[in-house]
Every structure is written in C-alpha cells, then in structure tokens.
C-alpha cells in the first residue's frame, strides 16, 4: 500500500477546488491570533503566503538568507505571468490553460492541481494590479498580453522584461505592510538549517543568524518551505548564486519525500559560457522567441560572420522541424534542438556551442507597422529599421542591454548567440493537494514543491504557480491542518526536540569547520556541476548516470576530507554558508541521478537517449512510468521509491507534437 495520499477531492475536475474551499475546516479569528506559522523564503511563494496568512490573523515569522526579502530570485524572472483572462478574445479559458499546462508538462503532473492553478490564475492578475504592479498596457489603458512558448493564445501579462521583479515587489510590499503592522516578524540574513520535529509533526526550525553566526530556535504550529529550486546543483545555472536546496533537503532528511528530482528544465535561450571563470549563466527571456528567429548556418563549421551568411544558407531549424509552433515550441524541445545542431557541428561563436537568435526580420516588420501608424509614405529602408529598433527597444530593451554588457556585442546589429542552460527544477518536495509534504505540518510552496509542471514547465507559469500557492491556495488549505491544532499552545524552545535539533546543526558546522582541508568550496561545487551537466543534463543514458553516481560519491568523500573554510563559525562567514549548501547538493545530485536512472522513459526535460522516436523526439512510456517518483530518505544516502500513479481523466496523454 502506498504511503502517498494525494488528497485530491472527489467530484468533477472543474468543481473540486470550489467544493474544497466551501467545505475545508476553518480556524476562527480569535484562534488564529495564537497560531504561529513559519515561512522560510521570501520569493513570490513565500512573500505572498506570509502576507496573506498574516492578513488572515496568523502570527507569522518569515526568514530569508538575503539581506532583504526583496532580493529573492523570483525577482529575476523576465518574461511574464500566464492567466486565463481571455482579454484578447482569442479563445482562452481556464480549461485551455489547464490543458496546455498538462500537455506542456508531458503528462506528468496532477490534473486536479493544474486545474486549480488555471482556475486561480485570473485572481492573481487582479490582486497584483490592485497592489499597483505596473503591468504593460495598451493605449486605451487596458492590460497588454503577449504569447509564450507552448501555447497558441496570448495570455501572458508582463512588465517589460522585468515581470518577476514587479510581481515580487508587489508581494514584498504586501509583506512589508504586515511587518509594519507587527503581524509578520521578518528575519533577513537568516538561513534555516533544520526542521524541528515533535511527535511526528513539524514544530519549528533551527536557523543561523548569518551575521553573528549564532543558531536560533523558532517555534511554529506549521512550517512552510518556499525556498525555490535546486538548479545550482549544476554550479552553472540561471539561478542566483545563493539559491540552494538546503531547507528542502533538511526536510527530506526529516521524512519529507522528494518528488521527481531528475526533472530539470534546461532553458533554450541563455547567453553561452564564455570561459572557466564563469560563475553563473544569464537567461534571455523566452519572450524573445516571440519575435526572434533561431538559426544556424547550413554549412558545418561556417567561419563567416552572421551578417555575411545569406538568407538561403541559413537553417531556421525550429521553423523547419516544427512548422506549427516554429520558434515557439516548448523549452525542452527548443533546448534539445539546439544541442542537436551544435553536437552535429553547426554551432556558432568561438566555442561552437551556440546558435543565433536573430532580430533583423522583427525589426523590419515592426518598422513597417510603425511607419504605417505614423502615416509615412515610402519610407526608406534606413527609416524602417530605425523605427523598428525603437519598437524592439521598448519591448525588450533591458534584455538587449544586458546582452550587450555581458558579451560586448550589439544585438540590434548582429544576431545574439544563445545556448541552453539550467533554469528551473520541476522536481521538489512531494506535496498533496493541500501542499503538505509527507511530514505533517510541513508545507512546500512554489518551485520548492514538485507539483504543477510535470516534466516540463511552460514559460510564464512559474510566477503563476508561486503566487497561486501563496495568495490563493495555502490560505485555504492550511486551515485543514491548523483547525485540528487550535488547542496546541506554543511549545517553548527549551523543549528537548529543539535542543537536539540545534545540537545536530552545531555538530555539522563543527565538522565542516574542523576539516581544514586544502580546497575551496567552489572547487567541489564546480566539479559536481560538471558531472551533473555532462551526465544528468540535457541528455542522459544508463551508463553515464551510473558513472555519475559513482563519481558523486567519490567527490562527496573528498569534500568531507579536504574542504577548506577560512574564518570562524560565529561570525559573518560566506564560505561556511556555501559549504553547507554544497554538502547538501552533493547528496541531492546522487538522488537526481538515481531518479533519472529509474525513469527509463523520456519525458519533458528528462531525455533518456535509450527512449526516443525515429526522428529523435522524446518517447514517453505511459504504461510503465505514468507516476510521480517520490523518494523516501532511508539515511546514509539510501532511498526507497514510492509511486503516485497519475490518472488522466480529462486530458488523454498522447505523443506531444508541436509539428
């Protein structure tokens, strides 16, 4: 019998959430005041959850490792947020958003969760606009939309190329409002290092004050992990430098199952690696694929500059292979196609590991439209290009500027060079319909959970999910648990469980500091990243994954014998922070490879070379793998696999085709 109960409500798909909301037990306002909730992380999921729960009357403590909650990496999301508003009158609906998301996720997500996500998507836009989030607007004053990969309607709301920033600052302002009212206590520059368990329930955390280095105990009736994804296991990714898996991993080791750890999204449009010094990779928003055309030379190892290659000698390979969706195929498909061309010898740039993203056609097209708007008759080619550049600048200016600063090239004049990079992790802590992990009282929201994106996330859906979880799901579902807990008084933090949890953290810190080895934390992190990228990256096979597991074990051994952490424990010590995070990545990496080994099919971002169609597309195996792989930690890097079968009642899995 499976230990997994997804708690999906009975009844037809479209009424599950409405019915759930009407029947879930409530906590009365007086009782809310004496219930404490800990929120770890202050990104879209964390800030929105902390603010919303405080508005309801709960006592909230919110933690983030950055110097301010406004820095969380949600801030870097560029392109937009999806919502089924159908403001464009182009046939969008909750059902279509649900359908696109399930299909885009290659049929490895729960239908009920995804439907709920689509259902609340419109409320998110309403809420954000009310907060003063300055979304892009049309001249009539109404909200503007654009299209994104994997869809055929325009349902993406955006604020230039800084949508994540504006949404996060909206959630941050809601959070700070509660901080000002005294209903949320904010702990910035604090890192959660352990979950405190009492009688089988999550009852608090041990956090390290990163300035003083001191450990602190915090009680909560419930603990919410909103700590983002684990893409930094690859060292090079589009994640922020501090993004880490530590909170989720500590929870995993306390009994929370980890769902689909191998589901990693490799984003197709990033600036290519320029050398060994590279510390992170920079994403160029997927929205650029709306207007940009992706190509490589038809001739192998073509030494000519992009502008010298005539039109007929260019291979617009996405348009060629996928005429229906063209440059707007989902991310996993676009990434693999780029890798395929580069591996075959058609790559461009000094490293030959890049493809062109070309704006020349879009500039001309916009220039013509603009000339018509301005009533210019027979404008010169130069005038058209000038006008077109202005339009492109308004739409994507910040992205183009960023590209120019990083590469030293002008993207208005020469095509950009792009290559896929690790961007998002669909896997994460397994949660039920209520967003609770397998540990009672411990929740996971946003990218930290495994839930809604299946094996591949569509563009502009991460912001939607983070805010859906925080604003509109957890405020309801947490009542189901806390209503049973109204008689639990705050547990004093001198309780034995807090003492022993703190000691465990202290022991690990002592152990790290006492290694006094010879190599920096980054040395090990880079090695781990290389193993993961080469063997558990865009393409995976049995042999490589087995090698990776062995190599990670050896590397972990080396780390624990030879890492050097300068400075002291009880002070501001960035190397010690990094060491703890890399130690956890060194365990997670092994689990990711094991999960990838177990899943012998290809699906979404997970491409097993052994499982492909004749024309090189990912080949799913629904008979054997239509399940969520939820891994239980058995200690000492042993895991037991549990399966949550996925039942598709509405959307019937078919071979995903974008042709």
């Amino acid at each position: 019998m499976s230990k997994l109960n997804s708690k999906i409500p009975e009844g037809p798909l479209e009424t599950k959430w409405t019915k759930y909301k009407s029947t879930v037990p409530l906590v009365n306002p007086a009782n809310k005041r004496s219930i404490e909730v800990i929120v770890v992380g202050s990104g879209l999921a964390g800030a929105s959850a902390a603010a919303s729960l405080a508005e309801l009357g709960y006592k909230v403590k919110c933690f983030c490792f950055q110097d301010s909650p406004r820095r969380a990496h949600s801030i870097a999301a560029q392109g937009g947020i999806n919502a089924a508003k159908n403001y464009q009158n182009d046939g969008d609906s909750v059902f279509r958003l649900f359908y696109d998301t399930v299909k885009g996720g290659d049929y490895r997500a729960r239908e009920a969760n995804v439907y709920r996500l689509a259902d609340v998507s419109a409320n998110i836009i309403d809420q954000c606009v009310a907060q003063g989030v300055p979304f892009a607007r049309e001249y009539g004053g109404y909200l503007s939309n654009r299209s994104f990969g994997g869809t055929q309607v325009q349902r993406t709301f955006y604020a230039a190329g800084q949508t994540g920033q504006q949404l996060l600052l909206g959630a941050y302002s809601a959070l700070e409002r509660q901080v000002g009212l005294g209903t949320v206590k904010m702990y910035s520059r604090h890192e959660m290092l352990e979950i405190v368990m009492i009688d089988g329930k999550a009852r608090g955390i041990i956090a390290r004050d990163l300035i003083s280095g001191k450990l602190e105990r915090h009680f909560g009736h419930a603990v919410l992990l909103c700590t983002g994804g684990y893409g930094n296991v690859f060292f090079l990714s589009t994640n922020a430098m501090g993004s880490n898996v530590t909170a989720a991993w500590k929870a995993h080791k306390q009994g929370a199952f980890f769902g689909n750890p191998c589901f990693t999204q490799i984003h197709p449009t990033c600036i290519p690696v320029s050398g060994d010094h590279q510390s992170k990779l920079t994403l160029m928003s997927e929205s650029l694929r709306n207007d940009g055309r992706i190509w490589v030379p038809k001739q192998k190892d073509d030494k000519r500059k992009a502008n010298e290659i005539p039109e007929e000698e260019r291979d617009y390979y996405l348009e060629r292979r996928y005429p229906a969706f063209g440059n707007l195929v989902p991310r996993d498909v676009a990434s693999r196609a780029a890798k395929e061309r580069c591996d075959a010898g058609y790559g461009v740039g000094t490293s030959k590991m890049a493809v062109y993203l070309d704006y020349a056609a879009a500039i001309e097209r916009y220039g013509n439209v603009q000339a018509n708007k301005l009533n210019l008759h027979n404008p010169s080619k130069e005038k058209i290009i000038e006008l077109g550049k202005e339009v492109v600048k308004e739409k994507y200016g910040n992205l183009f500027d960023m590209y120019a600063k990083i590469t030293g090239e002008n993207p208005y004049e020469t095509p950009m060079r792009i290559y896929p990079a690790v961007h998002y992790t669909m896997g994460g802590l397994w949660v039920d319909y209520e967003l609770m992990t397998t540990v009672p009282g411990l929740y996971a929201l946003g990218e930290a959970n495994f839930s809604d994106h299946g094996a591949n996330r569509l563009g502009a859906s991460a912001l939607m999910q983070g805010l859906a979880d925080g604003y509109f799901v957890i405020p309801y579902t947490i009542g189901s648990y806390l209503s049973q807990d109204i008689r639990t008084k705050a547990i004093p933090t001198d309780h034995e469980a807090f003492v022993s949890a703190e000691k465990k953290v202290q022991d690990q810190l002592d152990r790290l500091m006492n290694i006094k080895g010879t190599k920096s934390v980054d040395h090990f992190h880079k090695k781990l990243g290389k193993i993961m990228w080469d063997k558990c990256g865009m393409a995976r096979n049995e042999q490589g994954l087995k090698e990776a597991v062995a190599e990670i074990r050896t590397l972990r051994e080396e780390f624990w014998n030879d890492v050097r952490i300068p400075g002291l424990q009880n002070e501001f010590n960035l190397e010690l922070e990094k060491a703890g995070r890399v130690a956890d990545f060194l365990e997670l990496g092994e689990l990711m490879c094991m999960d990838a080994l177990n899943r012998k099919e290809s699906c979404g971002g997970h491409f097993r070379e052994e499982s492909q169609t004749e024309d090189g597309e990912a080949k799913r195996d629904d008979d054997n793998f239509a399940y969520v792989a939820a891994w239980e930690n058995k200690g000492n890097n042993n895991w037991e696999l549990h399966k949550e079968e996925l039942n598709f009642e509405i959307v019937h899995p078919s071979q995903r085709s974008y042709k």
Partner: protein
Amino acid sequence: MEHKNLNLTLKIWRQKNSKEAGNFVSYKVSDISADMSFLEMIDVLNEHLINAGDEPVAFDHDCREGICGMCSMYINGRAHGPWQGTTTCQLHMRAFNDGETITIEPWRAKGFPVIKDLTVDRTAFDRIIASGGFVSVNTGNAKDANNIPVPKDDADKAFAAAACIGCGACVAACKNASAMLFVSAKVSQLALLPQGQIERETRVLNMVSQMDAEGFGSCTNTGACEAECPKEISIENIARLNREYFMANLKKKDYL
C-alpha cells in the same frame, strides 16, 4: 570578439565587523579575462586568498544579472563603477585597462552600517517600505484587473519608477547620503497610479518620516543619485516627491 587579459592592483576595504576599524589592503590579480564580470574577478581573488590560507573578501551579491539589487561596491569613487546604468555584477572587466589600480569600498552612509568588508546593512530600506510603500489591499479584495484602466503614459512612468532595485547606490553616491531617490521612486510609482490614490498623503508623510528617522541626509539637488543609479531612475521623481510631500502637509487633517 576582442580577447585581452589584464594584470591589476586591487585596493580593497577590509573590515572585520561593524565594531572594528577597517583599512585598505592591496592585492594583485593577474591574467584577468576582459570577458569576466567584475564579481567574477573578485571570485578569482577570493579563490587565491582561500588557497593561500587567507580570508576571502566578503561582499554582497546574488542574482548576478543586475536585478536583485544585492551587489553594492563603490569602485574608483563611483557607486557600481564606471559604466552608466550598470550594477557591479553587470560591469565587465573590459571597462578597465591593463596595469590599472582599482579602489573598492563599501557603500558609506550612516544609514548603511558596514557588516564586514564590502557588505553593509540596508534594512533601513525595508523599514521605509514597511512605513508606507504599499497599497493596503488584502489578498482577495481585488476586482477584475481591467476595471482599473490606467493611461499608458502613467503606467509607463510608474513602471520606470518601480524599476528601482533598492541597491542603495543613490545613497552611496550622494554627498549627504540622502535616500530621496529611493523613497521618491516608490512614492511616485504609487502616486501615478489610481490604485495608490487613497493612501497618497499618508504614504508620503510616513515614508519621509521613516527616511529621516533612519539617519539619511537631506537632498540638495546635486543629481549624483540619478547619475549613478544602475536603473537610471529619474530625479524627476524627487521633484514629484517634494510636491507630494508639500501637498500632503497642506491637506493634513489636523491643520483644518
């Protein structure tokens, strides 16, 4: 693409913690690729320091794509260094010449005490936002988004102000360590939008009062903040803040 490698002398502010005095220490780095970002260059230095048994330089950084606002170095006398409209993490080494000496300091302002080396405490900014930088709308209150049409011009101006990343360069660049550009950006964003009208007066009064309480200086219209802002937030916002503040004081209920 041009490939050159640089040998540089770095004069870096080292300070153990908020209590002890700090001083400049010089370091040499060699063979720095012009394609590196400024922070990757510091990574190289830190890797050398760790390997040599020394303590690496502590500095704030996170997204490394110019949006989180965490990086905060004062480079050769300029907040975020020589490039216009650029954060330290987006500054690249092609901005420097071989053999150059680069001076690197933390933000210096009473409102931003040093934590260690180049890291400062900017929680004052959070407290200013908490005093009024929001629209009081609880989750679930909102009506359909298109029921609040906003003229595109206003929306664009509000967005331009809202692009502030809260890095504190404006304070660091100002001879008075004034936080007016930061405060004015938030006040402007919300004053320009219909959603912000209801709390328009209390917002500006509370935020300015908190700004003063945090120990930031006054604005004397020098314009250094605008010149050094990595997001090129316009000083026009400060003019708007002054108007908002003046009007709010005039309309204060207890004057009537």
